[in-house]
């Protein structure tokens, strides 16, 4: 099987979630990596299974339309059977596009490696983190997006040769991006391995300083509950839950969040959950691995100091 992997980057470096996509692809067959923006370590894709990396300049990352069109083009040039991408805001739209253009089976939110012992079966996250679904992908071509943190990385291979290719991708004139507003310098929430999240228990936006401090000590992203983003204490892109961002970090620390079922839906695939709350009856403790019954204003500064000493 020949597999095309769309490699996304952040700050010029391949995203960890794209290394996971490469790992999934390498379990299927020969892997060709595709880079559509400026990446300084493109050759590193080889360590995770790519036999070569194609770089296409001029797209500058691109919208999901441009990415979908470019990948459709490259998949026919390379005669690829499968396209694998990390699940992201770009790949979601691109995968639907590719599904129609290539008449492919599409599976988003795929967890772990496909089972090709009979057919081509993948496990997907469904019911917003509350269940999994095994689906078979019967079409000759397949498009997968991989849920973050669902495969182990090894990275033991060699660097891959990098080839520049030129591609005629005509952008759709009916749609234009006028402005991009992106947070700078911080850890991106959907990509984060560690997340510090806080809720109404913090009483007001002026008290987020200690949450940001703790996140800084850990190298974590900050997040919040829905009532907090609804009240404009924090930006919407930090809202984790059923109708917000779904995260799957190694560690999710929830401070002053009761753990309504809609919030749990966004965090249930976290590896380890720590809950800090003054209410012993908070439902979040039932979903947690570790808990502290206590006041955030007392516990968080102490935890921050303890982490500084230990890390």
């Amino acid at each position, binding site marked *: 099987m020949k597999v095309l992997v769309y490699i996304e980057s952040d700050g010029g470096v391949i995203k960890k979630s794209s290394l996971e996509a490469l790992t999934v692809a390498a379990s299927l067959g020969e892997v060709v990596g595709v880079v559509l923006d400026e990446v300084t370590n493109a050759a590193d894709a080889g360590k995770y299974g790519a036999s070569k990396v194609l770089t296409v300049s001029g797209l500058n990352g691109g919208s999901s339309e441009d990415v979908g069109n470019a990948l459709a083009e490259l998949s026919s040039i390379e005669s690829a059977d499968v396209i694998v991408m990390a699940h992201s805001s770009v790949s*979601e739209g691109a995968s*639907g596009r590719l599904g129609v253009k290539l008449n492919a*089976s599409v599976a988003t939110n795929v967890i772990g490696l496909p089972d090709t012992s009979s057919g081509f079966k993948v496990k997907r996250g469904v*019911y917003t983190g*509350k269940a999994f679904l095994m689906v078979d992908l019967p079409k000759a071509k397949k498009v997968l997006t991989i849920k973050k943190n669902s495969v182990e990385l090894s990275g033991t291979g060699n660097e891959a040769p990098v080839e520049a290719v030129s591609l005629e991708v005509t952008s759709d004139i009916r*749609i234009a991006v006028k402005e991009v507003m992106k947070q700078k310098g911080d850890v991106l929430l959907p990509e984060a391995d560690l997340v510090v999240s806080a809720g109404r228990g913090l009483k007001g936006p002026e008290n987020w300083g200690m949450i940001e401090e703790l996140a800084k000590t850990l190298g974590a992203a900050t997040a919040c509950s829905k009532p907090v983003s609804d009240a404009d204490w924090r930006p919407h892109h930090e809202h984790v839950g059923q*109708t917000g961002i779904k995260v799957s970090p190694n560690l999710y620390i929830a401070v002053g969040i009761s753990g309504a079922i809609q919030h749990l839906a966004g965090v249930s695939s976290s590896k*380890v959950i720590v809950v800090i709350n003054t209410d012993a009856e908070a439902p979040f403790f039932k979903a947690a*691995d*570790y808990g502290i019954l206590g006041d955030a204003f007392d516990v968080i500064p102490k935890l921050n100091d303890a982490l500084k000493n230990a890390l």
Partner: protein
Amino acid sequence: MKILVCITHVPDTTSKIAFVEGNKKFDANGVQFIIGPYDDYALARAVELKEQHGGSITVLNVGGIDTEVTIRKGLAIGADEAVRINAEPDDSMFVASEIANYAKDKDFDLILMGRESIDNNGGVVHAMVGVLLDIPSVSPAMRLDIDGSTANMDKEIDGGKEVVEASLPLVVGCQEPIAEWKIPNMRGIMSARTKTLTVLEPSGADKGTSIENYELPAEKSACKMVDASNVEELVDLLKNEAKIL
């Protein structure tokens, strides 16, 4: 302005999820069904746009007869007429093809839907419908304003947002805070009973996936409590037991 709003019929967000028939089918027993929360935002925005610009709203669902209660709720919220395509919505490509097949000769200016369903979580139907109808698609949109034949939107991206402009006709996958959810009033509920709900048979579009079986996540073990005066113990557990620091 002619607006099509595609809605899903999904278990209430507080439902207990279970499966029957050898884990091949969702257990609907005792479950309350709702309009998908993201679709509900799409419908609410459609109602607001109709108030501003005039026009009509058609609400569409791909589903069996049991979804008609949910479709009537869409009519009560403010859609003028409804269409149910009589088929199980068990594959994104199938659903997108049925929507596109229905919409292709109806001259809708806007096709709105949620960014994803909360049962299948595919998140691809809007993009597929756009390609099938050869019109642009944008998702997830947090803001949607219409000026003449141009749509102006805020689209959420990882860690921020983009301001996007597109010409109509257009497909938009919606999410909060694009509009406030609307609760149907008594007049809406009464008039919903007499609005037209047309049932169409599916065109028999191709499916891209076939369901093998569902599984539930493993039960969490009990939460280990750490004393608030001993946060060093938590750090130690995260480092040496959970091995994540």
